[in-house]
């Protein structure tokens, strides 16, 4: 075998090894590829919730069991404080809706198969917030995610289109109704008679100076039952900062 032949052989081997190395380098890391395999929500998707919106749409989401807290702090409107006889009128309107309804006795199933009962389904029509609202998570796996608009925000308040927002909330969620509550401890829960009274007046506008909703799941649809894109925007969060901590 001549020296020239051996050089060619070495060159071929070198090329082969180089090709393997370069190819392996070219092949991108696929940290997410493994997770693309089918991952049901529990065995056989048995842990999916079955929910029906007020509009009659049935959904089967896989739920995180993380609470989204919508907080609009109720500010004290009087400098006198919170003494027994001191009034703190709730005259500000930080949020408003054109109609509200509630349905009690709701049960949710979560991704781990656990269930939670005693929840309420609230349905808001044209829900908008004018100031000071934050959406933040609690109960996440070691993190908090916060959505904080500088001022206004809208959930289902597209112009020219009626949009409903269905929220499944815990019984200790509260609202503070404008001109109906006057004290520092005027939080109205879904199981409160005042809320029931408001519920009777569906299609009557309501507003409030505070809100603290503990939302297990919310869905809003800007168009038909199938959620087609309308360009109307179900959720509008102007000047909003999203953070993960």
């Amino acid at each position: 075998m001549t020296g020239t032949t051996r050089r060619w052989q070495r060159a071929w081997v070198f090329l082969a090894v180089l090709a393997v190395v370069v190819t392996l380098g070219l092949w991108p890391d696929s940290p997410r590829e493994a997770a693309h395999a089918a991952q049901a929500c529990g065995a056989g998707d048995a842990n999916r919730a079955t929910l029906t919106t007020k509009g009659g749409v049935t959904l089967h989401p896989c739920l995180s069991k993380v609470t989204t807290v919508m907080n609009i702090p109720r500010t004290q409107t009087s400098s006198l404080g919170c003494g027994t006889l001191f009034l703190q009128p709730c005259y500000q309107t930080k949020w408003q809706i054109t109609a509200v309804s509630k349905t009690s006795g709701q049960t949710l199933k979560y991704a781990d198969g656990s269930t939670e009962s005693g929840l309420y389904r609230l349905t808001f029509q044209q829900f908008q917030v004018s100031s000071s609202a934050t959406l933040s998570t609690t109960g996440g796996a070691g993190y908090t995610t916060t959505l904080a608009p500088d001022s206004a925000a809208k959930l289902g308040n597209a112009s020219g289109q009626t949009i409903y927002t269905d929220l499944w909330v815990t019984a200790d969620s509260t609202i503070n109704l404008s001109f109906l509550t006057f004290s520092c401890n005027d939080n109205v829960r879904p199981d409160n008679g005042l809320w029931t009274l408001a519920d009777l007046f569906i299609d009557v506008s309501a507003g409030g100076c505070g809100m603290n909703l503990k939302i297990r799941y919310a869905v809003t649809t800007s168009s038909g039952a199938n959620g087609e894109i309308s360009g109307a925007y179900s959720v509008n969060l102007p000047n909003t900062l999203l953070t993960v901590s």
Partner: protein
Amino acid sequence: MRARAADAAAYGTRWRQTAPLLLLAFLMMAAALTLLRQNVLAAVVTYQGSTAKFSSGRVTGQDVGFGMAQVNVAGAGTKTVLAAGFATGTLDGLCVSQVQTLPVIGDVVIKLTSGDGNSSTREIEATNVQLDITQLRGSGTGINLDGRVQIGMASQDITTLAGVDNPLSAPTGTGWWGIDATAGDIFSAKGYLYDAEIGGPMTLPGLRISVTPKSAGGTECWSTPGDATPLPH
């Protein structure tokens, strides 16, 4: 002559053992090149150990999802991020920057920009995109979600790609929160991200990549998320 034969035996190529390696190598090379040409292979941008800044005049996506997930960051371990994904999308300009500290030179700004300079067009197109975000600000019109929007879903159930389960590769079970939307828009977007994956074809008109020492005037995409640094268009 005998000595030459011995040399050949000692130094010659064992083709029977080499052939499989050769074949495997060329097959892999051919496959990789074919996939790259067909834009099947993902473009992955990973930032070593720290976040990069990004900005865009507008990001518009179909089949949009946001879900909490975890990523392994080189040199920094596991980080919890908000994985934002969409099946198809368009952008009005893009800027991604990161500062690296080099010996002698000091801080150097590595910056990628793309766009046509026109704020009325969304000239950048991408499919199967995922951004692992730690902070995002949408200014002006801000963050808009359209169609059916669901809040509180398990990240594993977020859908961004038809027929793909858990496209955000989120941990399964409870504790991982997400938002699913039919479509979404983020206006005047500025944020931090750990990495970006573009799994499908991407068009980046006017692409520029610069490496500029800060001392020579190198600037990042923005200073603070709410500042007045002009957005790319």
